[in-house]
C-alpha cells in the first residue's frame, strides 16, 4: 500500500474535461491583464488588439475543422452551442417545418433541448442504436418527413467513444434537403473532423475537451450552399453575426484558438499513441473473467474504452481505487431510481451490465506507466468486489441468474 499512496492521482477521465495545455495558458495570460480590451470596442487600441486576437483564434479554430473563419460563432461551450443550433434552427426554419430527428444516445444538452422544442410545439423522433451504439441509416432515412428541418447526430459518443457514419448521414440529409447538425464535442481536436467534407451544416464544439479552457466553445454555421442561419437565443449587442450576443470571452477564445492549433499539428501522432495505450489498457483488463467492451470496436475514438465488469457494481468498484485513479461510471447510484447510463441502456445492455460499467478516457498527458498502474489497481478492485458480491458467488456456483426471483425495490 505504501508505494500506492506515494503515487499521484491518475486522471483517466479526459472525456469529462481535459487539463489546459501549458502552451494554451501561456497564450491566454496577456489577455487578462495588459491586453484586456473589449473586442467590440471599435474606437481605441485596446479594442483593436482584442479584436485582432479573436480574429486570429477564429482562424485557428476554422483551420482545425477546415472551414471559413466566418463560419465559426464563439459561445460559452458545447451546451450553449447545442441549444443555439437546435432551438435557433427550430425558430429560424419554422416556416419549413417543426420536425427534428435525433438519437437516443445523444448528450443531455441535445436531448433536453429537443424536449424543450417539443414543449414549444415541435415534434422530435428519437432514433434507436444497435448493440454497438450505431444508428441504422435506413431508419434515419425512413424517419425524414416533408416537415423535417434537421437531423441531429453526435460525431462521437461521450460515454463509449462510438463514431457515427457521418458521411452517410450527410448524404441522406443532402438528398432530402434537411439540415445536418452534429455535436462534435468529443471528436474535435482528437480525430480529423471536417464538417464540410461530410455535409454537416451546424456543429458544436468545446475548448475544454481539447486541452483548452472551460467556458468557451463554438458553433460552426455553414455559410454557403446552403446558407444556414439560426435565431439568436440571447438578446443583446448582436455580436457574432447576430447569432450570439454577449461580450466575447477574449482570453478564453485565445486559449481555444491555441488549443486548436496544437491539436491540428499534433493530432495524428497523439491519436496513434493514445490508441496504443487504450488497447494496452483494454487488453490488460479483458484478462479478467466476464469483462466486456461496450461500443463498436471498429468505429470509435482512439482514447476511450467503456468496459463492463459483470457482477460488480460500478460505483462501488470505483470506490476501491478512487484514491489512485479518476474515472467515471456508467452507473449513477445517486438517485432514488438508481438509473444506469441511458446510453448503455439504449444499446440494449441489460441493467446489470450497465450498472457494472466504467469509462476510461485517456489524454495527452497519460503515460504508459499510468496505464499499467491502472490495470493493476482496477483488476485488484474487481477481484475484491467480486469476493464481496453475492451474484458473483451465485454465478460461480452455476446458478442461472435470470431465473432467480429477485425482490425488486
Amino acid at each position, binding site marked *: 500500500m505504501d508505494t500506492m499512496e506515494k503515487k499521484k492521482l491518475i486522471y483517466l477521465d479526459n472525456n469529462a474535461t481535459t487539463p489546459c495545455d501549458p502552451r494554451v495558458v501561456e497564450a491566454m495570460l496577456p489577455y487578462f491583464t495588459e491586453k484586456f480590451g473589449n473586442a467590440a470596442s471599435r474606437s481605441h487600441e485596446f479594442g483593436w488588439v482584442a479584436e485582432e486576437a479573436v480574429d486570429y483564434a477564429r482562424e485557428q479554430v476554422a483551420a482545425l475543422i477546415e472551414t471559413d473563419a466566418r463560419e465559426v460563432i464563439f459561445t460559452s461551450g458545447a451546451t450553449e452551442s447545442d441549444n443555439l443550433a437546435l432551438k435557433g434552427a427550430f425558430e429560424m426554419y419554422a416556416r419549413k417545418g417543426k420536425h427534428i430527428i435525433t438519437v437516443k444516445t445523444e448528450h443531455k444538452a441535445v436531448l433536453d433541448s429537443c424536449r424543450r422544442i417539443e414543449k414549444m410545439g415541435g415534434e422530435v423522433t428519437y432514433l434507436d442504436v444497435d448493440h454497438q451504439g450505431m444508428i441504422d441509416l435506413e431508419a434515419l432515412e425512413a424517419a425524414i418527413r416533408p416537415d423535417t428541418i434537421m437531423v441531429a447526430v453526435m460525431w462521437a459518443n461521450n460515454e463509449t467513444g462510438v463514431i457515427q457514419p457521418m458521411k452517410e448521414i450527410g448524404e441522406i440529409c443532402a438528398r432530402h434537403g434537411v439540415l445536418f447538425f452534429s455535436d462534435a464535442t468529443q471528436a474535435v481536436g482528437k480525430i480529423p473532423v471536417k464538417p464540410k467534407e461530410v455535409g454537416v451544416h451546424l456543429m458544436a464544439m468545446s475548448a475544454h475537451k481539447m486541452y483548452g479552457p472551460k467556458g468557451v466553445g463554438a458553433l460552426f454555421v455553414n455559410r454557403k450552399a446552403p446558407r444556414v442561419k439560426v435565431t439568436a437565443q440571447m438578446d443583446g449587442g448582436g455580436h457574432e453575426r447576430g447569432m450570439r450576443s454577449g461580450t466575447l470571452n477574449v482570453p478564453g477564445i485565445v486559449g481555444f484558438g491555441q488549443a486548436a492549433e496544437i491539436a491540428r499539428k499534433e493530432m495524428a501522432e497523439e491519436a496513434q499513441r493514445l490508441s496504443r495505450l487504450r488497447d494496452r489498457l483494454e487488453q490488460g483488463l479483458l484478462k479478467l473473467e466476464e469483462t466486456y467492451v461496450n461500443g463498436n470496436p471498429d468505429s470509435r475514438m482512439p482514447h476511450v474504452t467503456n468496459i463492463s465488469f459483470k457482477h460488480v457494481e460500478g460505483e462501488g468498484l470505483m470506490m476501491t481505487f478512487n484514491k489512485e485513479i479518476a474515472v467515471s461510471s456508467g452507473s449513477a447510484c445517486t438517485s432514488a431510481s438508481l438509473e*444506469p447510463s441511458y446510453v448503455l441502456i439504449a444499446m440494449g445492455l441489460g*441493467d446489470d451490465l450497465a450498472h457494472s460499467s466504467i469509462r476510461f478516457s485517456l489524454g495527452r498527458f497519460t503515460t504508459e506507466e499510468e496505464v499499467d498502474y491502472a490495470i493493476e489497481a482496477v483488476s485488484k478492485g474487481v477481484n475484491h468486489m467480486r469476493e464481496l*458480491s453475492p451474484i458473483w458467488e451465485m454465478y460461480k456456483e452455476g446458478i442461472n441468474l435470470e431465473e432467480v426471483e429477485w425482490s425488486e425495490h
Partner: protein
Amino acid sequence: MAYSEKVLDHFNNPRNVGTLDKSKKNVGTGLVGAPECGDVMRLQIEVDEETGIIKDAKFKTFGCGSAIASSSLATEWLKGKPIEEALEIDNMAIVEELELPPVKIHCSVLAEDAIKAAIEDYKKKNGQA
C-alpha cells in the same frame, strides 16, 4: 460525493464477509434487491437454538459503497443479539450511524429488509413463522 469516514471504514475493511451453510437448520438467509436495480444484499444469520441468540452473521453485497457499509454494519449489530431484538433494528439507525446522505437511504432500507428476510427464513425453517 464524499463518503463519511464510517462508510469508508466499513467499505475498506468490511466485517463478516462470507457465506454460512444455508443447508443448516439454524442458518437463516435473506437475499434482497435485484441486479437491475444496482444492488443485491445477501445477509445470513446463525442462531444458537437454545438461547435464540444470533451467534454469527455474514454478508455479501453487490452495490455501491453505502450498500456495502450498511450490510457490513448490520452484521456487526446482529452478532450477539436475540432474534426478537434484531427485528427491531431500524434503517434510520443505520442512516445515523453511517451518516448516509438522503440519496443513499435506500441502502439502509435494503439492509433492514435483508435482516428481516434472514430472520423470517430462520423462523420458517424452524416452524416459528
